């Protein structure tokens, strides 16, 4: 079994060896899709952004430092792509509503709750949302999240503190209104 980082190095050594890179995509695609979805709240945008992340990674293989972790490097590219996504935000509402309609038809409590949590996440400022997603969902340490976000650990801690406070308030409001959470 070849480690993903080795795979990336191999892809790099082979001057963009396509098979090695394709395997790297296969291994990281779910993680990058999840990250993009959590940050954008849109399946379609997550798909576009995940693709853009890997394409950028392939094009910038030369910039990948051998001592770095492939996943951290991919995280950083994905986070940058998603932060830039704000410019294309208008698509999100439409898609989110479509997903909401689809899920409403199924009418599962779990999916309703998941949707509400995602909606609460979407109410956070983008950078606070990114901090929550990277640390809570993807299990990155503050230092790793700071590298991916291109800021200091203190900034990550502060964003997490602010984001948690807001999310708690939002979830409480939902509980009061008798919704699923």
């Amino acid at each position, binding site marked *: 079994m070849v480690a993903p980082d080795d795979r990336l190095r191999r892809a790099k050594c082979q001057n963009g060896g396509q098979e090695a890179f394709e395997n790297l*995509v*296969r291994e990281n695609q779910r993680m990058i899709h999840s990250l993009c979805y959590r940050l954008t709240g849109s399946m379609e945008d997550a798909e576009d952004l995940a*693709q853009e992340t890997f*394409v950028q990674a392939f094009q910038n293989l030369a910039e990948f430092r051998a001592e770095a972790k492939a996943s951290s490097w991919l995280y950083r590219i994905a986070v940058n792509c998603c932060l830039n996504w704000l410019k294309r935000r208008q698509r999100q509402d439409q898609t989110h509503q479509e997903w909401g309609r689809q899920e409403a038809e199924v009418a599962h409590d779990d999916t309703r709750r998941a*949707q509400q*949590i995602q909606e609460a996440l979407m109410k956070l400022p983008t950078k606070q949302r990114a901090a*929550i997603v990277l640390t809570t969902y993807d299990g990155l340490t503050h230092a790793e999240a700071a590298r991916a976000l291109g800021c200091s650990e203190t900034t990550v801690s502060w964003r997490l503190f602010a984001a948690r406070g807001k999310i708690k308030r939002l979830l409480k409001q939902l509980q009061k209104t008798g919704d699923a959470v």
Partner: protein
Amino acid sequence: MKNSELDQILKSAPVPDRPGAYWDQFPRRVMAKTVRLSTRAEAAVTHPRTEPFWLRSRFRLATVGLGLAIFGLLLGFVLGFWQGRNLSITGPQLAAARKYFQEIETLFPGQVQAIVFDQQGPHLVLAEHSNIHASSPLYLRVCGPKGCQSYVTFSGQQIRINGETCEVLLDHQDNVLLIGQDWVLSTAQAPAKRARYQVSARPLMTL
């Protein structure tokens, strides 16, 4: 609510899943896109674009806009020049009008109110009595939406332009005023852009 409880709630919300085929296809789609992009990049290096930059797609709109602007300017210039040329009074025009006036004047002394030169030729406007000549004759050229007409007339007379009656007056600086129902034109001022008519005038008896 503790942070750990919050984390649990957050983690309980899964990302909507996609069908297995999507995950099979995705890496291929990424690779296909990278191949497409690198092919395009290679093509740009090996076959550099030979068309001028203004024909490239990103500049095409600007080029069309610039072309239209230049065309508009040229058209405005040509129309303005053409209209100005129409309006200007030439020596031969003035000489012909003077000759015509003198012949008519010998036939109907002091009765000529106006001689109108239009597309159909000259028309006479005569008074019943010979009491017209209080001032020297004027040659007017008036251009409007229906074309240009020339007149030999006098200050204080009325002429008809495209069916509208207006009065011709000469001020103390020898500028000609045309006074219509709801408009005034003067040869002393450049006509407004939306003026109904444009007028130029010269004394008939001087070259």
